[in-house]
C-alpha cells in the first residue's frame, strides 16, 4: 500500500480523501492504480489524502477511510473502485460511521467501466484518471442530505389470487397483519385450480390448494375482493392509495348462501373459456368450480338471457334468500396500504400461431391446459382421457415440447415447466389408459429436486422419448396405417432420420407467456417489463422479488415462467420483505428528490405536466408549484424542463453535473 504525498491544498476549501481500489488484480491488472492515486494526490483540487489499497470494500479498507475522516478531518470522500450499484451503500455506511454525511461521498467506477472493458493499460489508466477527476470535482459540490423517514402503513395489497398471491397473503395474515387480496376472476385459485395432479409428487392439485383457498376465505386478517381489478395506484412506499373496481356480480354476497340452485335452474349454458380452457361448459350464472372461494356465483351478462332479452329471471325466481340482484352496479373501493405485492401470473401461448401443428383445425390436437382439464376428475369428462368426440380413448398420444418457447419467432426463452408437465401427462395417460405415449423434445430439462428421478420413473413406466422438435402434424395420410390418424412428422435427431408416427391425440406444450395486459399493468404500478413482457425484478440474483419501485414487490410467474414450488417460494419471500418493512415501522426514503425554489417559481406549470407520479401539485392560491418529496422519485425530468431553472435536483444539481463534466474532460484541450 503506497501513501501518496499530500499536496497541501484543501485549506479552507473541501478536504477530499481519495481511495483507489486494486480489487485484487481486477482493477490493478489493467489500471496503474498507484500512479492514479499519486496523480490524484498531486493533481486534483482539494485532495488531502490519496491512497490505493488491495480491497477497499474489506473491513480494513473501510476502517482506513473512517480513520482518515477522523484524523485528516476529511469532509469529502471518493472511492475509485467497482460500480456504485455494488458498494455505494457500503462506503456510505463507512462515512456515516465516522460521522460524515453519506451524501458527501462519491464513487468512481473504474472496474466495470474501465479495467474490465479495456484492452490496453495506458488508455485504461487515462480513463480511470478522467473518471476519478469527475468524481473529485463533483464531490466538492455535493451537499449533506438527510433521508426522509416515512411511516409504513401495516396494511398490504396482494394483486392476483393464484398460488403465489395466496401464499403471500397467508404469510402476512398469519403474522397478524391486515391483507387485501384482489382477484380478477370470480374465484381465487389461478391456474393451479385447473390442474389435476402436480409434479413430481403427483399429489392432487385441488387437495393441496383448496385448503389454502378456504383459509384465505375465512382468515380474519384477509379481505378478499374477488371479481375486482385495480384501477389506479397513487402514493409511494409506506403510503399507497389504491382504487379498486369491484365488478357487479348481480348476486348480493351478504344474502347468498352459495346453495347453487340458481346455477341448476339457469337454462343458458355456454363454453367456459377461462376455467375449463374452452373444453367445457358453464351456465350464464356460474361459479368457476365447486370449491370456488368465495362461493358466490356471478352472472355473465354477455350470455344471460335476461340481460339480452329481458326475459327469464329463472335464477332470481328460484333464489329463496333473494340474493340475485339484476340492478347491481360496479363499485369502486379506495384502499390505503403500505406495500403492494403483484402476483398476476401468466397466460398460455396461443397455439394457433404455429399452424403446422394444426391446433384449431385438427380436432384431436389439444393444448396442455386443455389436457389438464381433460384428465381432471372435476373436468368436462370427469377425468376420462378421450378424444374430442368425448368417447374414444386414444391408443397413442404424442406430446410436443417447446410450442412457442425456445423459438425466436415467438419466445426465445425456455418456459421451464413444460418438460415436467409433459412427464406428468405421460404418467397420467399411462396410468389411466392403455395408450402409448411419445414425447418429442429438444432438450429434456427436469431441473429441480426430485425431477430427474421423475424422468427416470417415466422411462421405467415405458414412456417413449424422441429427441427432435416436431416438424408438423397432419391428417394427410401417406403410408399404410396412417389413414384416419394424426401423423406427427419429425426427425429423430439421435438416429439422424426423418420419421412419421401415426397417433390419435397430440398434446401441445404451449409456452408460458406474459399476460396480454402485462405492460399496461406494469405502468399502473410504476414497474417496468423486460423485452418479453415479464415484470422486472430489482436484481436477477440478489433481489428477485423486489422491484425498482420501493414498496412494490413481485411474486410468481408474472416475473417469468415458474412452477408451483418456485411460485410459492417467491410468494413467501415477497411477504417476508414486506413484513420486514412493516416491523421496522418506518422506511428511509433517499433524499434524492427535486425541490422548487418557490420564491422564483412563475407558476408556469411546465413541471406539473412532466411528472408521471403526480408528485408536483400546483398551488393556485400562491401561483406556485410544489413537490411532494414522498411521491417524487427523483428522475430530474422537471429539473431539466423548468424554464426558469428554479427546480433543483438534489444530489444531481447543475453545479454538480457541470463540475463532473469538467472533471471527466480535465485533459481536453480548452
Amino acid at each position: 500500500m503506497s501513501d501518496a504525498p499530500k499536496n497541501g491544498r484543501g485549506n479552507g476549501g473541501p478536504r477530499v480523501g481519495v481511495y483507489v481500489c486494486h480489487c485484487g488484480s481486477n482493477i490493478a491488472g489493467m489500471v496503474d492504480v498507484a500512479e492514479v492515486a499519486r496523480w490524484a494526490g498531486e493533481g486534483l483540487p482539494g485532495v488531502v489524502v490519496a491512497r490505493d489499497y488491495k480491497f477497499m470494500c474489506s473491513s480494513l479498507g473501510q476502517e482506513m477511510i473512517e480513520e482518515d475522516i477522523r484524523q485528516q478531518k476529511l469532509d469529502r470522500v471518493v472511492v475509485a473502485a467497482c460500480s456504485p450499484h455494488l458498494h455505494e451503500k457500503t462506503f456510505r455506511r463507512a462515512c456515516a460511521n465516522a460521522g460524515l454525511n453519506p451524501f458527501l461521498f462519491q464513487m468512481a467506477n473504474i472496474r466495470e467501466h474501465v479495467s474490465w472493458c479495456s484492452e490496453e493499460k495506458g488508455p485504461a489508466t487515462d480513463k480511470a484518471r478522467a473518471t476519478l477527476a469527475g468524481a473529485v470535482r463533483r464531490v466538492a459540490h455535493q451537499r449533506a442530505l438527510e433521508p426522509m423517514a416515512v411511516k409504513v402503513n401495516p396494511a398490504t395489497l396482494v394483486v392476483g389470487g393464484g398460488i403465489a398471491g395466496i401464499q403471500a397473503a397467508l404469510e402476512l395474515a398469519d403474522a397478524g397483519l391486515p391483507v387485501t387480496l384482489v382477484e380478477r376472476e370470480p374465484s381465487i385459485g389461478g391456474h393451479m385450480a385447473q390442474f389435476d395432479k402436480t409434479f413430481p409428487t403427483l399429489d392432487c392439485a385441488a387437495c393441496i390448494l383448496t385448503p389454502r383457498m378456504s383459509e384465505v376465505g375465512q382468515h380474519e386478517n384477509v379481505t378478499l375482493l374477488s371479481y375486482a381489478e385495480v384501477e389506479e395506484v397513487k402514493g409511494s412506499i409506506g403510503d399507497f392509495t389504491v382504487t379498486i373496481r369491484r365488478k357487479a356480480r348481480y348476486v348480493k354476497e351478504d344474502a347468498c348462501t352459495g346453495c347453487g340452485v340458481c346455477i341448476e335452474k339457469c337454462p343458458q349454458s355456454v363454453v367456459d373459456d377461462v376455467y375449463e380452457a374452452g373444453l367445457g361448459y358453464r351456465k350464464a350464472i356460474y361459479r368457476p368450480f365447486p370449491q370456488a372461494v368465495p362461493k358466490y356465483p356471478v352472472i355473465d351478462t354477455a350470455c344471460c338471457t335476461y340481460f339480452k332479452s329481458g326475459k327469464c329471471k329463472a335464477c332470481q325466481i328460484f333464489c329463496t334468500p333473494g340474493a340475485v340482484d339484476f340492478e347491481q352496479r360496479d363499485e369502486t373501493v379506495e384502499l390505503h396500504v403500505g406495500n403492494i405485492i403483484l402476483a398476476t401470473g401468466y397466460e398460455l401461448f396461443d397455439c394457433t400461431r404455429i399452424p403446422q401443428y394444426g391446433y384449431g383445425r385438427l380436432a384431436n390436437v389439444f393444448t396442455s391446459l386443455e389436457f389438464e382439464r381433460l384428465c381432471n376428475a372435476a373436468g368436462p369428462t370427469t377425468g376420462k382421457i378421450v378424444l374430442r368426440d368425448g368417447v374414444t380413448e386414444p391408443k397413442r398420444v404424442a406430446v410436443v415440447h417447446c410450442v412457442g418457447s425456445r423459438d425466436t419467432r415467438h419466445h426465445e426463452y425456455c418456459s421451464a415447466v413444460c418438460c415436467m408437465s409433459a412427464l406428468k401427462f405421460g404418467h397420467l395417460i399411462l396410468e389411466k389408459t392403455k395408450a402409448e405415449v411419445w414425447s418429442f423434445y429438444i432438450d429434456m430439462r427436469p431441473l429441480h429436486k426430485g425431477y430427474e428421478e421423475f424422468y427416470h420413473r417415466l422411462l421405467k413406466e415405458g414412456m417413449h422419448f424422441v429427441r427432435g422438435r416436431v416438424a408438423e402434424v397432419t391428417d394427410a395420410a401417406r403410408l399404410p396405417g396412417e389413414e384416419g390418424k394424426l401423423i406427427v412428422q419429425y426427425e429423430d435427431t439421435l438416429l439422424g432420420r426423418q420419421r412419421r408416427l401415426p397417433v390419435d391425440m397430440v398434446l401441445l406444450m404451449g409456452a408460458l407467456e406474459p399476460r396480454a395486459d402485462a405492460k399496461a399493468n406494469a405502468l399502473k404500478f410504476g414497474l417496468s417489463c423486460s423485452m418479453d413482457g415479464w415484470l422486472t425484478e430489482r436484481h436477477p440474483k440478489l433481489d428477485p422479488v423486489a422491484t425498482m419501485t420501493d414498496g412494490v414487490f413481485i411474486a410468481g410467474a408474472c416475473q417469468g415462467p415458474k412452477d408451483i414450488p418456485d411460485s410459492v417460494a417467491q410468494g413467501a419471500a415477497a411477504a417476508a420483505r414486506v413484513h420486514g418493512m412493516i416491523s421496522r415501522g418506518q422506511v428511509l426514503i433517499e433524499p434524492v428528490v427535486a425541490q422548487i425554489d418557490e420564491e422564483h417559481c412563475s407558476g408556469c406549470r411546465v413541471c406539473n405536466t412532466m411528472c408521471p407520479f403526480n408528485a408536483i401539485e400546483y398551488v393556485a392560491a400562491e401561483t406556485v408549484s410544489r413537490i411532494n418529496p414522498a411521491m417524487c422519485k427523483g428522475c430530474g425530468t422537471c429539473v431539466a424542463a423548468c424554464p426558469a431553472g428554479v427546480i433543483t435536483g438534489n444530489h444531481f444539481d447543475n453545479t454538480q453535473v457541470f463540475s463532473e463534466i469538467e472533471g471527466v474532460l480535465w485533459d481536453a484541450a480548452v
Partner: protein
Amino acid sequence: MTDHAHDHHDHPFEPKIVGFLCNWCSYRAADLAGTARIKYKPNIRVIRLMCSGRVDPAFVLKALARGADGVMVAGCHPGECHYLVQNYKTIRRFQLLKHTLAALGVEDARVRLQWASAAEGQLLADAINDMVEKVRALGPLEWPHKWREGNGLDRLEAEVTAEDARLGPPHREAVPEEVRP
C-alpha cells in the same frame, strides 16, 4: 500537468466522448458489459444520471464546449423507462437539441441518443465503438476555441431552455402508443 492524452499533434486523434447514462438501464448495461468482459473503445467517459430525462440540453452543450468531440445520451428503451414515460420527454428534448446543434454546424454523428436495457451490454458496447469511429472520422470538434471569447454558450443555453419551455405544457402520456399491446 504533463500528460500524453494532452497534445493531439504528436498523437493520432483520439475522440473524447462524454456519455450521460441513466441509472437504471444504460448504466447497468455498461456495468454488464464490464462484468461480461466485453471490450470496447476507452474513449467514452461516463456520467451517471438518474434518468435520461434529467439530461438538460445545457449538459450536452457544456460537454462540447469543454472539449468533448461527441456526446452520447443513453436511456432505457421507450416503454421500459424506470420512471414510466420520462424517456419520451428525452426524445422530444433531444430532437430539439439536434435541431439547434445542426444550426450551429455540429455534425449529426457527434451527438447520439442510444437506448440500452440493463441486459444489453453488447449493444451498448457496439454503439460506443460505432460512435467513436464515426466521430474519429469527423475529426476534433474544437468548440472551445470557437467559444473562447464572447458568451456564446450562455446565449445558447438560454435559447435552448427557452425553446424547451415553449414546447410545454405537453399532453401527459399516461400510456404511450409504444407501450400499448
